């Protein structure tokens, strides 16, 4: 024992570097490392010795199941929380990113970031209809939908408290413009009557939105006549005819215009035509770009929050794993010393303890991922979007997130196993043999 402090310091530095590389490693890198380790284990003498030693350790795991399960459950907790938080961010982003496409455009007043801030006067609508690049229907009408959005208070299904919902008035051709939207129940609203169709997300989040029910909005009674599904942010909305909405809420102008363009070339032509017309000071973006931009900040916030919470929990779990593995090594001190006395060298002993910890960590990671997946995948929640109204979205536990969770689990196992392993390898044989 020259200087244990120097040794420990060196291992900590190596560990930090190793962890950073590990977290950034792509899947083929991980595969490469796994293959390299497997080759070393099976082809070299040292490797075979390590494998033999590990087999003894793993074989005795069932006798120590209480202590070992602490590692598994601890790591499962970290991975479960981490994956669930990241799945929330991913779900929100996925909902907004899948809203809209590259062949439809949304027109807002110049400088507006969201529909709530935008105003488009009625006289501008026919002008926009004549621009190049717009797709037309069988009768030759331009496929555009002038829209109004009104934020309304609806009672939430969870506790009946008022939450903001988006009440959208759409144009006559809206069903052709928003081609992802399809009815799953009932029928479309009839123009001029106070009838509403509701998104399936809204129906699951707010009270009293079933077909046939009436709803009081803006001091008027509305009848719900249908339910639609779009699989994106529109799912959280209530739709009616724009003219009816405008007359109810005394709104004289529109807020946005959604336009279906002739492919992506049509969009370019449409945008160019809009920019060239001095009468129209309006902003054009593809609907995909518009909704995608809205997801940015909140999704980032959730991800940062999830990572920070996960990291603090991971630190706690590392200490737990260290504790358990130190105890395991101490408990088997005589056994390990005997192995070393009969010729097992330091490296196989280190590798054996590491393999054992990594196996437990892997189990923990799998368990945590499985828990997060069974409980949260598809779990539906809502939050306030940038239009001051609720966006309903689902947690999305993707394979990438599970993979990330596994990498975290193995990282925790690496740290938690390394120091006890080094200790096992460095403990003087004579001292360890006398251990009780």
């Amino acid at each position: 024992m020259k200087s244990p402090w120097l040794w420990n310091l060196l291992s900590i530095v190596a560990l930090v570097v190793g962890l950073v590389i590990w977290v950034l490693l792509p899947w083929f890198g991980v595969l490469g490392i796994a293959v390299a380790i497997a080759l070393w284990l099976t082809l070299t003498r040292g490797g075979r010795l390590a494998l033999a030693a590990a087999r003894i350790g793993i074989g005795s795991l069932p006798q120590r199941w209480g202590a070992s399960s602490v590692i598994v459950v601890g790591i499962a907790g970290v991975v479960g929380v981490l994956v669930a938080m990241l799945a929330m961010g991913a779900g929100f982003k996925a909902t907004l990113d899948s809203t809209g496409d590259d062949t439809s455009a949304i027109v807002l007043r110049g400088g507006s970031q969201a529909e709530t801030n935008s105003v488009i006067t009625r006289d501008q609508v026919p002008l926009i209809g004549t621009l190049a690049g717009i797709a037309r229907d069988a009768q030759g009408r331009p496929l555009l939908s002038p829209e109004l959005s009104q934020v309304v208070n609806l009672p939430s299904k969870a506790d009946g408290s008022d939450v903001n919902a988006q009440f959208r008035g759409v144009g006559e051709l809206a069903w052709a413009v928003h081609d992802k939207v399809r009815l799953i129940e009932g029928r479309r609203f009839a123009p001029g009557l106070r009838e509403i169709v509701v998104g399936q997300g809204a129906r699951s989040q707010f009270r009293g939105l079933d077909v046939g029910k009436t709803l009081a909005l803006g001091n008027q009674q509305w009848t719900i006549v249908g339910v639609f599904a779009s699989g994106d942010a529109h799912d959280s909305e209530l739709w009616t005819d724009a003219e009816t909405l405008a007359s109810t809420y005394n709104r004289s102008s529109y807020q946005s215009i959604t336009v279906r363009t002739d492919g992506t070339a049509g969009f370019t032509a449409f945008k160019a035509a809009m920019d060239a017309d001095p009468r129209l000071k309006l902003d054009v973006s593809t609907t995909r770009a518009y909704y995608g931009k809205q997801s940015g900040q909140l999704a980032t916030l959730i991800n940062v929050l999830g990572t920070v919470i996960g990291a603090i929990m991971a630190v706690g779990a590392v200490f737990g794993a260290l504790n358990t593995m130190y105890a395991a090594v101490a408990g088997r001190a005589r056994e390990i010393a005997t192995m070393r006395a009969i010729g097992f060298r330091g490296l196989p002993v280190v590798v054996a303890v590491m393999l054992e910890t990594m196996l437990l960590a892997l189990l923990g990671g799998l368990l945590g991922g499985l828990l997060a997946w069974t409980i949260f995948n598809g779990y539906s929640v809502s939050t306030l979007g940038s239009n001051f109204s609720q966006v309903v979205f689902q947690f999305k536990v993707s394979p990438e997130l599970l993979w990330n969770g596994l990498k975290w689990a193995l990282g925790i196992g690496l740290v938690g196993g390394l120091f006890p392993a080094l200790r096992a390898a460095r403990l003087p044989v004579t001292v360890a043999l006398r251990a009780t």
Partner: protein
Amino acid sequence: MKYLSLVWAQLFRSKTRTLLTLLSVIAAFLLFGMLDSVRVAFNAGGSVDGANRLIVASRLSITQSLPVRLQAEIETIPGVQQVTYAMWFGGIYQDQRNFFPNFSVAPNFFDVYGEYEVPPDQLQAFRDTRNGAAVGESLAKKFGWKIGDTIPLQATIFPRGGSNDWPLELKAIFRAKDRSNVGAENQLLMNWTYFDESNDFIKNQVSWFTVQLANADQASRVAQAIDAISANSDRETKSQTESAFQQAFAKQFADIGLIVTAIMGAVFFTLLLLTGNTMAQAVRERVPELATLKTLGFTDGTVLALVMVESVLLVVIGGLVGLGLAAAIMPGVSAASGGVISLPTVPLQTWLIGLGLMVGIGIIVGVLPALRARRLKIVDALAGR
């Protein structure tokens, strides 16, 4: 008390193990301190000052405005001391990423919101300058604004003469008296009269009224009376206390309480296992020592108590360090971000819940090993059976 040194010695019998356990307890309570402070802050909704204030907004939705003439009608209701109003402006400074709330407010805004401190001469200058602006200290610091500067605010909702430019003159910088409320300094205020006269779209409209009550006990009676004024009109109002209003708004982002409880559940379950395991190990290792204690005449009850105290002490030390760290970190983060992120300090409520949790966890974790220590038969234990 006379056994404290004995417990202390037991605690540090295996330094590595105790240190590692302490560190994982610290991590858990650090997380608890931060998350629970955020939860308390969200649920408390403003300072105690808010208890005697009502917010009157449109019943239809928060984005719907109300006619300013309601002010005179609200003022006639008995129990109302003062009424002020504000209109959401929603302007941006340079880039929309620099988001901060901005409103136009009535001249008596600072009379009702007494939790802000403004130098009297600056306040007068703000009221007297048509296009004057008042900003919070942290916001001014963030962008390096000084009194007399022109702030080129860009409208996103309300153009002025067809253009989005709203240059404002900075006339006052206000401070939050309660330093835990620094987040409230991250806003800009302008004069409502100027806004009303200059914007192209709407006239005589406000987003909400703030009503100061003579007596906080009358809140529900006054709220009902206010809502009765506009009942069955197309401008119905909804009056609620300021804290209820803020809570409802915060709740729309997410159910903070639920998320915090879920995460903390996972964390503490893990913690219970880790610490419980450590205590079990500690007792297992010490069986001969405990037997010796009993031989010396320590009763079963004392041995049980010794182990329990050790376990509670371990968790309480770790927990206090963790909460202390949280208390030290959170204002630091707020200060470093210059008011962008405003994390509350750890409130008393969180400390109390935390202490309860520490003792509770300590007891749960210690009970099994302690019972084991109590049941030890001296002969068996000394013989190593």
